[in-house]
């Protein structure tokens, strides 16, 4: 009875369906590769080799760190389309400073963090002080960042050979051959920290409150304007951390490094169960969403699917994942409604009257 109960609770947990989808995809990819590509020889399956797992984790680390900030913004009811282009701008700018302007690594890091936060605060200021849609405002900033990036490089890439390698090229090696890079550790650490913050602090509760009902939040004593401003500032911090991880790993800054990232990130966050309307979502859902999309594109590469088809399959997957969470949401709602009906029937019968 008790274990039955906890299984039911687990099934109703908001991340369960997306987690099951992830498991299904992993098993499916393994089986497809095993029988269709490797002719049943399990030792040749590349998808589960430690080297491949290390690569997948490294590849998702950038998206994952960006997705933490985006989850905060989206749970509070906002959206930020500018993160991909901001990443291009910051990455190119950092490469330019260290390569052409002779900045030391710490000076470059401090400059980048300040610039990222300042720009996000400016955007947050406009969004929180006006009734303008964050969608449109961030679209404007996205284009501005593109312009800045091209102004810095004239369109070419800047390589920073052998500089700023600490984040990207520090690894923890496991005996099995698994190599976990520092960006992956950062992703896990930041996810855990922000999960704790969202769950156990007043700040976290207020993120949900502002996204759930802005009017009610204001009447409950939350300074909604400043709060939103703060969230965009924090988002800037996550963008700059993600950019540093990427720059340090690849050693290249240029107009393409973050191009289209906002789509991947928003897709992962939505797949992870965050509502576009705000007030709902959590960071483990986002983490699983990032992992899911990462696995899919890796698998498609291994299976030799054409990159053009990959776009179509990824798009379709996003829609399927959102549909699944929509259906599971409907199921929980109808379950709770029937519980309420039972309860009120009990109360009418007088069986709970002494409570």
């Amino acid at each position: 009875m008790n274990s039955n109960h906890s299984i039911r609770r687990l099934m109703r947990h908001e991340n369960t369906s997306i987690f099951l989808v992830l498991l299904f995809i992993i098993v499916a990819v393994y089986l497809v590769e095993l029988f269709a590509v490797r002719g049943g020889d399990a030792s040749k399956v590349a998808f589960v080799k430690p080297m491949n797992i290390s690569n997948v984790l490294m590849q998702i680390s950038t998206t994952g760190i960006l997705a933490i900030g985006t989850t905060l913004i989206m749970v509070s009811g906002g959206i930020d389309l500018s993160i991909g282009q901001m990443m291009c701008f910051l990455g190119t700018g950092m490469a330019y400073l260290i390569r052409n302007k002779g900045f030391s690594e710490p000076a470059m890091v401090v400059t980048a963090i300040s610039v990222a936060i300042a720009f996000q605060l400016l955007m947050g200021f406009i969004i929180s002080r006006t009734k303008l849609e964050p969608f449109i405002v961030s679209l404007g900033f996205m284009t501005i960042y593109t312009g800045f990036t091209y102004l810095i490089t004239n369109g070419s890439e800047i390589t920073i050979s052998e500089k700023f390698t600490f984040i990207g090229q520090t690894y923890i090696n496991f005996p099995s051959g698994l190599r976990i890079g520092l960006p992956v550790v950062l992703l896990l650490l930041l996810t855990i920290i922000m999960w704790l913050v969202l769950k156990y602090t007043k700040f976290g509760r207020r993120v949900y409150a502002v996204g759930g009902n802005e009017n009610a939040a204001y009447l409950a004593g939350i300074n909604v304007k400043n709060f939103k401003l703060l969230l965009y500032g924090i988002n800037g911090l996550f963008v700059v951390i993600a950019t540093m991880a990427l720059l340090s790993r690849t050693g290249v800054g240029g107009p393409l490094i973050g191009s289209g990232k906002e789509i991947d990130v928003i897709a992962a966050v939505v797949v992870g169960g965050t509502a576009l309307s705000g007030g709902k979502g959590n960071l483990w859902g986002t983490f699983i969403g990032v992992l899911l999309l990462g696995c899919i594109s890796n698998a498609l590469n291994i299976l030799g699917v054409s990159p053009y088809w990959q776009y179509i399959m990824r798009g379709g997957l996003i829609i399927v994942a959102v549909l699944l969470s929509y259906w599971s949401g409907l199921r929980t709602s109808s379950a709770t409604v029937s519980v309420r009906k039972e309860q009120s029937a009990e109360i009418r019968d007088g069986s709970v009257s002494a409570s």
Partner: protein
Amino acid sequence: MREQLILEMKGISKSFPGVKVFENFNFDLRKGEIHCICGENGAGKSTLIKMLSGAYAPDRGGIYFDGKKVTLTPHSAMQMGIQTIYQEHTLFPQLDVVENVFVGKEITNGVVVNRPRMVAKTREVLQYLHSDISPDDIVGNLGSGQQKTVEIAKALIQESKVIILDEPTASFGQTEIEHLLDIVRKLAQSGLSIIYISHHIEEVFKIADRVTVLRDGRKINTYAAEGLTEQVLIRDMVGRDVSLFYHREPVPAGDVMFEVKNLSGNGVRNASLFVCSGEILGLAGMVGSGRTELAELLFGVKTATAGEFFVKGRKIEMRTPLSAIMHRMCFITEDRQTTGLFLNHALDKNIPIASYTHDRSPLAMPADDARMARQYVDSLRITTPSVFQPVMFLSGGNQQKVVLAKWFATQADIFIFDEPTRGIDVGAKEEIYRFMIDLLKQGKAIIMISSDMPELISMSDRIMVMREGSLVAEIEKDKISEENILKHSIGGSVQ
């Protein structure tokens, strides 16, 4: 007589779940007359309009138009020539006057719209109405009096036979009112029939040919305006069923807890009031008289342009709801769904949220939140499967209790209730009254806005009446009566 009637309602009944609004209701409208409808908030005026405009269908009884029995839908009502001009504007603000008055009835040459003819016709109608509005003006740029004129022009263009005006002068200045009354008289003289609904008793006496008084969905009387006196009208409007009243236990009042002096802004003019601990100050007034706007100023939702705030005799600054909460105030708003609750969130997330301001710790432990929620679920007897239930699945009464729990948790001393029992059933209503009395016993102070006359009269220790943004009267406990409140709310020559 009969051939003179344009519209007739016979034996109309209409109920909504749990409430019977109309019961065997009869009404008639003559050709070329101005027929005014009077009644308190909740007397059934809006329901009447909605049945005539086709928005609601009566459960029983018949509506006759020009002697023929008809079934009204919003579309057929307009086709027949019944045009309703609602209190709030229903024009398209981005479009110009011509496009608005001809909407759905454009003059065309085949498929192409013939704008010059429409402009000419609009100009003609506007001249007839003595209006200086140009046909090319964008409606959104016009004042509210002018917009009302455009709506009337639209009714004329659409060849209406009956025009229903619902509180047409709600946001008007005196000259605009006079202008509108002139237009209405002129329309009636030309043979149109007008149903005119107004809270303003002066207007009624100025233009009515006949007056019908509604109370609790019944027609009390229909009078010829000639010879009718204000006393008779008010006597008919009051006199609610005694069984609707709640018998509350008296609580002795203490010192002044909260006071404002000369508060202005947000549509409120120069309002001063105070409330003592252990006391309920009722705010009466017709819908739209500015009571909610005043409450918003009191709680810092909107910033006052002038005025002073005092809590327990000490002057305070009121900037935002946060300052109000810091001074132990709370505001139970009239619309719990849009301003009171986080509907998608569970009880354990709704109830503690306003209390977070009261200590400096940055932490909010889910276990503490759940414990707090459970405590209020027990003490307020909220019916819910668990504290992890999203509040959208609760009934109206239980939702209202969640809002109360949220504010009780802040340990507030000064409570502002705006329509505390709107849309909740009788049992929950009495429970809420009991909670309010408990608050008084703990020495809290309550300001209560209510359009429910029995509620206002039975709960209030003292009542202040609001009209057109001003507090116009203060009524002590022993002088509180429906008649007295109504006299002040609808104006007129009060002795």
